[in-house]
């Protein structure tokens, strides 16, 4: 759309682009800079790792993320396959009923979730985080998976059926191998949701040994004044795994976040 442009125009574009990006860069740089201030980077980061149950929390975050990803993926692919490739009464109604979850503010469910978790005796159980998190994430992943699986030709499914495959065999041996792109998208999305979650673990995992990484910064906050550089060192360590994963899988992240919106 830019046509042929002169060196001067090119320079103008470069300057405008840079000016637009600076406000986005500034907080990122400031966060890292603050984490290096005070007693210095070494002391700050060592404090985060040694003065908090950092590795326990890291492990808990990893377990919750893995559980959430596994549950969301299994539930999404099973239902996505049925909604895309099987015909049954009430298909559309059930699909739309699940999609309602897309617009639901999860805070609106806080009180009932509390009661349900209490009734099921799930306090201090990772399931108290994994189940609600999956329930509010599945509507989106299901929409994405259904749309993707619709694109697999019916002939492929039919061929498997003629060869004697059961519908489950078809799903496992034919459909899932054909679904790598959407698998990556679902995993990325579920991982982001689980890793970044703050309130569900706070509410339902009150045993300190079960807390997750997003709680680490709280260790340096107290009523007597906070140790700001260490809080920021903690923030950097909390965010680092997800930023590294993003840099390695840039394409899947961007696809994962836009898959539902762009055809």
């Amino acid at each position, binding site marked *: 759309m830019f046509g042929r442009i002169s060196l001067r125009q090119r320079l103008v574009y470069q300057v405008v682009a840079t000016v637009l990006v600076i406000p986005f860069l500034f907080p990122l740089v400031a966060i890292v800079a603050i984490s290096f201030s005070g007693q210095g980077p070494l002391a700050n980061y060592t404090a985060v790792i040694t003065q908090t149950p950092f590795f326990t929390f890291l492990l808990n975050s990893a377990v919750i993320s893995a559980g959430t990803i596994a549950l969301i993926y299994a539930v999404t692919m099973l239902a996505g396959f049925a909604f895309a490739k099987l*015909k049954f009464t009430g298909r559309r109604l059930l699909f739309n009923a699940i999609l309602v979850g897309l617009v639901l503010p999860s805070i609106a469910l806080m009180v009932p979730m509390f009661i*349900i978790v209490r009734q099921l005796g799930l306090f201090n159980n990772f399931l108290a985080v994994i189940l609600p998190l999956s329930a509010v994430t599945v509507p989106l992943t299901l929409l994405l998976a259904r749309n993707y699986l619709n694109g697999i030709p019916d002939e492929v499914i039919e061929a498997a059926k003629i060869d004697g495959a059961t519908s489950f065999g078809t799903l496992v041996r034919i459909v899932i191998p054909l679904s790598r792109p959407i698998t990556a998208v679902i995993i990325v999305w579920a991982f982001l949701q689980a890793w970044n979650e703050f309130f569900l673990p706070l509410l339902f995992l009150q045993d300190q040994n079960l807390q997750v990484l997003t709680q680490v910064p709280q260790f340096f906050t107290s009523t007597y004044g906070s140790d700001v550089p260490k809080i*920021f060192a903690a923030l950097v360590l909390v965010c680092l795994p997800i930023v590294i994963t993003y840099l390695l899988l840039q394409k899947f992240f961007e696809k994962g976040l836009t898959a539902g919106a762009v055809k």
Partner: protein
Amino acid sequence: MTMSPTLDTSGPEDGTGTPGDSRARRAHGHPPTPRPKRRGGRTAYLYVLPALILVVGVVYLGIGYNGWVSTLDWNGIDPNPESVGFDNYTKIFSDSIFWDSLSHVAVFGVIVILVQMALGLAMALIFSGPIFGRNIYKIIVFVPVILSPAAVSIAFRQLLSPDGQVNEALRFIGLDVLTNAWIADPKTALIALAVINIWQWTGFSFILYQASVSQIDQNLYEAAQIDGAGTWRIIRSIVIPQLKGTHATLALTGVIGALKTFDIVFLVTGGGPGRSTEFLTTYIYKQAVQQFNSGYAAALAMVLLVLALTLTAFQMRAYRFGED
């Protein structure tokens, strides 16, 4: 078997449609074969069952339970809550905090949606040009999207404090007059929250616009250039209209997002100073967890839910989603 591969089959779906080949066989006078095992049928329900249990179990059970609690005067613990009918709802409509919260969400929503769309579009356009270091720029704008809102909130509490890095930077570039106590000042707190949200989510608008800008037919640009249109004119007359679908998607997700916003408000301002940044979500949380007004909180949650559904349905109709 000829099954339509379309997305939403609006025709009858009784799950017993006869495959074309067996119909043909029967027409040729073969003895009626046992009906071939239909793909789908009852087993299909087994596939959707886990999703249904999960979503119905948490979402619908939750809504139903909320609906019931919303008719009670209950502190959440008392084994004998008192039923008060629709009193909680009538109370909502005369509750000035409710109306204030609603207006805060509206102001916040309008600001963040418009600014995020404008910035995202501007970046998508400029970055599609010959920009040096484009991928680095892209990463910078997108990284905030993947960060935990809890972490972002903690960071901005410090950055926006009176002696924080934002004021420092303003002083550094000679804009002392603009320095402010941002989140501690009732006049700027809501704007500060909007700025944080814009910082975190512009990358999303940007990526969406970028994907759809790259899909615009290059010939349109060439034709316009031959007709003597400049860059600005091309953007106004070709690019912006071509991106209609993306504008609609962002407006829709933006409205839902604004109504859902909780983490950053709760963790940055806690709804304050005073009630100057109270959102419906933070008000619900406070009523439920801090004030032990479970009934009233549930009624507020039902109002929020109806609001979200109505606005979504209204927009989907306005943007004509699902018609293609």
